[in-house]
C-alpha cells in the first residue's frame, strides 16, 4: 500500500513538471498532502493509539487546507497571471526529470542491498526533493518557488517515513509549525515585493550584487 501511494506521489511530480498553470501547483500540493496523511493513517492503523492520530490530522489540516488556501489567497490578491513563465520549457525539463528519477531509483535499489529500507518511498521522496529544486531553479515566478520549496518539504516527509525515523510527536508538530510559519512569512514578503517592485519574478531581484 505504501508503495502504491509513493508511485502516486511520483505521478503528481510529473504533472507538476508539465503543467503551466500556477493553480495546478497548489492542487498538486493538496494531492501530496492527502497522500502523506493517508500514509501516516495506515501506519497508525497498524498499531493504533489515540495519541498517534494527532499527527495525521494536523498534517491534513496544515498541508491540505491551511497552506494551499493561503497560497491561493496570495495568488488572487496579487492577481498573479496564471502562467508560470519557465526559463526552460516543460518538454525539455520532462526528459531531464525522467532521467533523474530513473537514476535515483536504480541507485536506491543498489543502496538498499546493504541497508534495510523501503526502496520505493525512499526513491520517491528523493525524486520529490530533486524536482522541488528543479522548480526553484527553472521557474521565474517567486510564488512558484514557494510551491517548489513545499514540494521539497513533502519529499523530505516521505523520505522520513521511508527510513522509518520516528521523531517524537512534539518535534514533528514543531516541524509542521515551522514550515507553516515559513510559508506565511514568504507570503507576506511576496505581498511587499509585489507592491515595491511592481512584479514578483526573480528578474526583479537583482539589486544586491558584489
Amino acid at each position, binding site marked *: 500500500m505504501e508503495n502504491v501511494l509513493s508511485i502516486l506521489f511520483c505521478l503528481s511530480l510529473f504533472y507538476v513538471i508539465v503543467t503551466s498553470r500556477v493553480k495546478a501547483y497548489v492542487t498538486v500540493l493538496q494531492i501530496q498532502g492527502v497522500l502523506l496523511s493517508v500514509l501516516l493513517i495506515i501506519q497508525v492503523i497498524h498499531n493504533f493509539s489515540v495519541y498517534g492520530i494527532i499527527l495525521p490530522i494536523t498534517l491534513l489540516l496544515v498541508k491540505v487546507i491551511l497552506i494551499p488556501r493561503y497560497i491561493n489567497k496570495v495568488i488572487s490578491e496579487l492577481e498573479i497571471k496564471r502562467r508560470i513563465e519557465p526559463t526552460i520549457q516543460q518538454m525539455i525539463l520532462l526528459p531531464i526529470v525522467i532521467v533523474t528519477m530513473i537514476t535515483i531509483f536504480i541507485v536506491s535499489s543498489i543502496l538498499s542491498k*546493504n541497508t534495510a529500507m523501503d526502496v520505493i518511498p525512499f526513491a520517491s521522496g528523493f525524486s520529490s526533493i530533486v524536482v522541488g529544486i528543479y522548480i526553484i531553479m527553472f521557474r521565474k515566478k517567486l510564488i512558484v518557488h514557494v510551491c517548489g520549496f513545499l514540494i521539497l518539504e513533502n519529499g*523530505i516527509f516521505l523520505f522520513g517515513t521511508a527510513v522509518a525515523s520516528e521523531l517524537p510527536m512534539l518535534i514533528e508538530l514543531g516541524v509542521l509549525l*515551522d514550515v507553516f510559519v515559513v510559508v506565511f512569512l514568504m507570503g507576506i514578503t511576496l505581498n511587499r515585493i509585489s507592491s515595491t517592485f511592481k512584479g514578483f519574478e526573480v528578474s526583479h531581484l537583482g539589486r544586491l550584487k558584489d
Partner: protein
Amino acid sequence: MLDFFIFILLPVLSAAFCFFVKDLKTQYSISLIVALLHLGLSLLVFLGLYNTDLPTFFSTDSLSKLFLLILSNVYFWIVLVSYSYLKRPIIPKAEEAKKYYFLLLNFYLASNSAAILSNHFGMYWVAAEATTLSVSPLIYFYRNEEALEAMWKYLFLVSVGIAFAFIGILLLTLSAKGTPLEGEQLFYTTFIKNASQLNPIWLKASFIFIFVGLSTKIGIAPMHSGDVDATSNAPSPIAALMSGSLRLTALIGVMRIYQIIRPTSSSEFARTILIIGGLLSLFFVFVYMFKVKNFKRMLAYSSVEHLGLITLGLGIGGLAFVGALYHSIFNSITKIILFLMAGNIRHNYNTREVLKVRSVLNFMPKTGWLFMIAFLAISGIPPLGLFFSEIKIFEGILFSDKPYILALVMFFLLFIFINMGKAIFNMLYKNGDGEQQSYKSEKFEFSHFIAIALLILLTCIAVFSPNILFENIINIAKDFGIIL
C-alpha cells in the same frame, strides 16, 4: 526547572508581553531585564556554580555552556544599545518596524537558546528554523528595496538549506540501521557513545547534507550569498547579532555531527570537508576585498572570513581547534563594535558606499577611533584578542599533517588585511575635494560607551586568559577526542 524557565520560557513570555504592550520604553526595560537574567544565569552555569536540570531534549555540556555564554553576552549588549538606536530619526516608513523589534529580539533569544541547549537533532532543527523566522523580519527593518530583497533571499535560501540539513538528520537515522541504536531517539549523547557502530556511508552522506545545509546559515562559501546580503542590509545591531551569535548557533549543529563522526573511520573525510569549506570562504573573501564598495558588506564578508577560519581550525584539530573556539569568542565581541560604529557612520553620512565617506576622524572622532581600533582588533593586532586565537590556529596548522595550508591562509589573510585596511583608512583619513573644514565635535553616544566597554572586555579576556575558560575549552577538545 528554573534554568529552562529563564533560558527559553521567559523570553517567550517577554515576547508575548511586547506584543500586547505598545510602549517602546516598557518593551525595552522588560527585554533588558530578561537579557540580564539570561546573561547572569548563563554565566553561573558556565562558572559551574549552577547545576542545570533541563527537561528532555535539552542538556548542557562544555560546548553548549560556552556558546550559550557567547549568545547571552552578544544579546545583552545589543539589547542595551537598541533603545538609543531606535530613538534615532529614521524614515517614516520604518516606524512600523519598531513595534515588532523587541518582540522579535525576545523570540530570537528563546529560539537560539533552545537550539544551543538541545541535545536532540530534531529539536535542534526546529529551533534553528525558528531562529531564521525570528531574524528575517528584522532584516527588513528599513523597509527599502534592498532590505526587502535581502530578507527574501535570506528566508528562502536558509529555509532550503535547513531543509537539506533535515535530510542529513534523516540519513543519520538510516546510518543507525542494524546497530544497537536502531529505533533509538536522535540524542547526541547516545549517538556519540555508539558512533563507531554507525554505517559509514550514510554517516558521510549525513555529514555532507548537514554541513552544506547549515553553511547557508553559517555563511561558509559557496553558500554565503544570502547571509552576506542579509548582514549588510540589516540594521547594525541586528547585523552584529547575526555575525556574533546566529552564525555560531548554526555552527554548533555542524559541530555536533562532527563530534559523532570523529571517533569513526570517516573522521578524515569530515576533516577534509571542513578544511575545504574554510579555505574556500577565505578565498571568496580574498577575491571580494579587491572590489569592495560598500563598507557594511565588507564587514559581512569579514564575518565569512572569520567563520571560515573557525571552520578551518575545527577541521585541522589539535591546537587549531582550541584556537578556533577562542576565535569564536573574540570574533563575536569585535563584530559588535565594528557593526555599531559602522551604523554610526552610515547614520551620519547616510550612505554605505566607501567612496562617499570622507574624513570620519575629523567629523566623528570618537566613532572613527573606535572603528579603527576595532578594525585593528579584527585584523589580529595584539593585544586585542583575535591575535592570540589566530596565533593558536596558525600554530595548530603548522604542526598538523597539512602545514602547507598555513601558506595559503597567510596569503589570503594578508591581502584581505591590505584591501580592507585601504578601504577603512580611506574612510577615516581622506579629505573630500573642496569641502569646508568646519568640524563640529561629536557627542558622546551610548554606542561609544558600549564599544569602549567591549574593547576592555576583549582585552581582559585575551590578556588575563581566565583559567575557567581555558579549562572549559580543553574539556570541549576532550569531548571531541582531540589530542593536544
